């Protein structure tokens, strides 16, 4: 089965790119440790595989076809670390995509990738603990993440509240590392923007009812509600909120940019709901990801972490291309700067973009990857910043309300300090 897949992939490579055929008799493995046994984790893995497929269509990276070896983390740190260790030791991967939860990514980083000199690129781990770890020099430059959104997200939330003239806001947040970070940042950012947070209530996963939490949040009689939740809990909480007479003025984190949430709550209640997200830059190629995704999966790329996962995979593969054949994990990690260079030649997030990047890199140039989450740019700690967008729900999906450029985002965040 697997062999026939190789043969098929090989044949495809030969057929579509005859001139590069001689370079295709090798395979480089890329590791992925993602929670595929969880409902929201599977699409994240799917979209990473999608990026790998696109790169293989462009003739692979570093002269070889790419094979993504996917392991399930089960959102269990023990299982995730074991999977990562097996990928590094048994499959011999030099780069690892994952994990999603910070509580899984962190032990992988501590005990597998950093000791093993393997580059680790997470789509979705948001904990500020990684920034501190990197700043302490404990990640050896091997750690990156494409999840830009905690700081940008809360600042943009403050901007929405200020722009809409909402003076008091209640916050419901997912009770995990991401949600706790968000709640803390929102408290500070909203206060700096002159908006009072009347109450900040943690929402635990998988409760049958959130009446107590919602009642608690309603107690402060806020003009608006901020939701840092995932679709399932978000839907339950918002239903209770509305049924208890809560306001329809809502600010949504990007995790709620999902069709599931829109359909289950009902569009008629979301007329005054504004979401925030990181955005693609305003160039033609930026729609490439969206279009390609729709063609492949038949829906909009809405859901937590999809765009981030795609970019994580794409940047990793670009860096592998830039680092060349037989590069170590550290070489590839160092090459990330070459493919996310703000002064580089812009390339789009699709097969054509990858092909273009290959020729630029072959000529010794650098490229600026314009990805699904925007014009991705990493800082010294492996954290990313990007432009932002304010969006709202429509019949078909979402629409853009306002675009905030990277400069404006930085300026706004600066103004809050």
């Amino acid at each position, binding site marked *: 089965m697997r062999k026939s897949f190789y043969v098929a992939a090989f044949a495809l490579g030969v057929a579509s790119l005859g001139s590069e055929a001689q370079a295709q008799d090798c395979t480089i493995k890329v590791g992925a440790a993602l929670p*595929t046994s969880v409902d929201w984790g599977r699409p994240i893995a799917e979209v990473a595989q999608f990026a790998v497929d696109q790169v293989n269509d462009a003739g692979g990276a570093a002269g070889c076809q790419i094979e993504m*070896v996917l392991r*399930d983390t089960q959102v269990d740190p023990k299982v995730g670390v074991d999977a990562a260790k097996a990928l590094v030791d048994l499959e011999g991967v030099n780069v690892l995509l994952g994990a999603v939860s910070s*509580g899984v990514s962190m032990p992988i980083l501590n005990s597998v990738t950093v000791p093993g000199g393997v580059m680790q690129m997470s789509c979705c781990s948001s904990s500020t*603990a990684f920034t501190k770890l990197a700043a302490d020099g404990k990640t050896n430059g091997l750690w990156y993440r494409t999840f830009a959104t905690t700081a940008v997200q809360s600042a943009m939330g403050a901007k929405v509240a200020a722009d809409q003239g909402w003076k008091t806001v209640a916050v419901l947040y997912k009770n995990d590392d991401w949600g706790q970070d968000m709640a803390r940042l929102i408290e500070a950012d909203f206060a700096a923007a002159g908006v009072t947070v009347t109450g900040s209530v943690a929402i*635990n996963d998988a409760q049958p009812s959130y009446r107590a939490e919602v009642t608690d949040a309603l107690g402060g009689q806020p003009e608006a509600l901020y939701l840092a939740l995932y679709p399932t809990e978000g839907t339950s909480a918002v239903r209770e909120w509305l049924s208890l007479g809560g306001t329809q003025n809502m600010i949504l984190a990007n995790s709620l940019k999902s069709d599931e949430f829109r359909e289950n709550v009902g569009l008629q209640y979301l007329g005054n709901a504004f979401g925030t997200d990181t955005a693609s830059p305003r160039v033609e190629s930026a729609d490439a990801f969206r279009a390609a995704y729709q063609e492949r999966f038949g829906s909009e790329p809405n859901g937590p972490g999809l765009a981030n996962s795609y970019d994580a995979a794409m940047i990793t593969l670009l860096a592998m291309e830039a680092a060349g054949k037989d590069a170590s994990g550290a070489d590839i990690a160092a090459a990330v700067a070459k493919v996310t260079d703000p002064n580089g030649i812009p390339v789009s997030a699709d097969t054509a973009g990858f092909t273009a990047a290959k020729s630029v890199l072959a000529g010794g140039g650098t490229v600026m990857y314009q990805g699904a989450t925007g014009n991705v740019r990493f800082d010294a700690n492996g954290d990313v910043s990007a432009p932002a967008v304010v969006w709202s729900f429509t019949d078909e999906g979402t629409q853009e309300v306002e675009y905030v450029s990277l400069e404006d985002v930085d300026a706004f965040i600066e103004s809050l300090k």
Partner: protein
Amino acid sequence: MIGVISYLVFFTTVAAILSIAVLGLNLQWGNTGLFNGGVVASFGAGAYGTLILGGAPQESHFGGFGLAYPLALLGGMIFAGLLAWVVGVLTLRLRHDYLAIATFGVAVAFENVARNAIWLTGGAQGVRGFERPLRAELGDGFLYNLIFLVAVLIALWLVFLFLQRLTVSPFGRMLRAIREDETAARSLGKAPDRVRLTAFVTGSVIMGLSGGLYGTFYAFISPQDVLPILTFQIWAMLIVGGAGNNAGAIFGTFLIWGAWTFSGWALARFAPIEAQLYTGSIQFVLIGFVIVGMLLWRPQGLFPERLVVSQPGANRDKPQAEGLT
């Protein structure tokens, strides 16, 4: 080849750490008949205790006392024991399923405190600032893992010896007497409540040791490590290995943890490409099958308890009856 050895060292380390926890549970359930549904509370107490005591100071949460590593590990074990003592005093009058529910509740409460008491435990982000001991001297490559494995195996061996001796001692006989018929034990002048508490606390301290080593190995602990799934995993290991048999407990741990990880590896390697996304779910189904099959066809476990006569003067190792539970 180096990769395979490196992975096996890693695998054995984790399996040996979990074995220690399973041995702790074996003392409680296998020997004393205490249905502890809150294994993760003791495990987590050991891990959090060790990391908070042994870590570098942090501004974001309590702790970071920077104690020497053996002291930190000991502190974690003591913390696990203290927690077990409080829980034990409150709940050990309960029997069987009631005790299971009460201890399960304690474990869930422990996880929630770890998740929400940010000032104390770092909240959902977990405990930071812990360095693996001797990392500066040994680096953190293969050599470190090898030496760590040896240390863990020594700890496992000591716990195993301790429990083997305990089982054949008069105290071990008293534990089994209480397990089989508490009223009869009481009629012979034994104090079941105190003995049960002693066994519960001892087992929990052993689980705390396991948790401390676990936290040390990953240099990190977060609420995600102390979810109820871990209790389930440890129970599955004991049931498959054979409750009441220390060697069986260790064997069961290696077998279940091996199956847990090997199934993931095998599915990733051999499953057809279009099924790759579903291997995580398939794996859960397979593991469920193994445990259900075990309960149906060999409920006493792979290595059933071997009852021994522990009278002074008698041949201690001679099995008198097999397969009795």
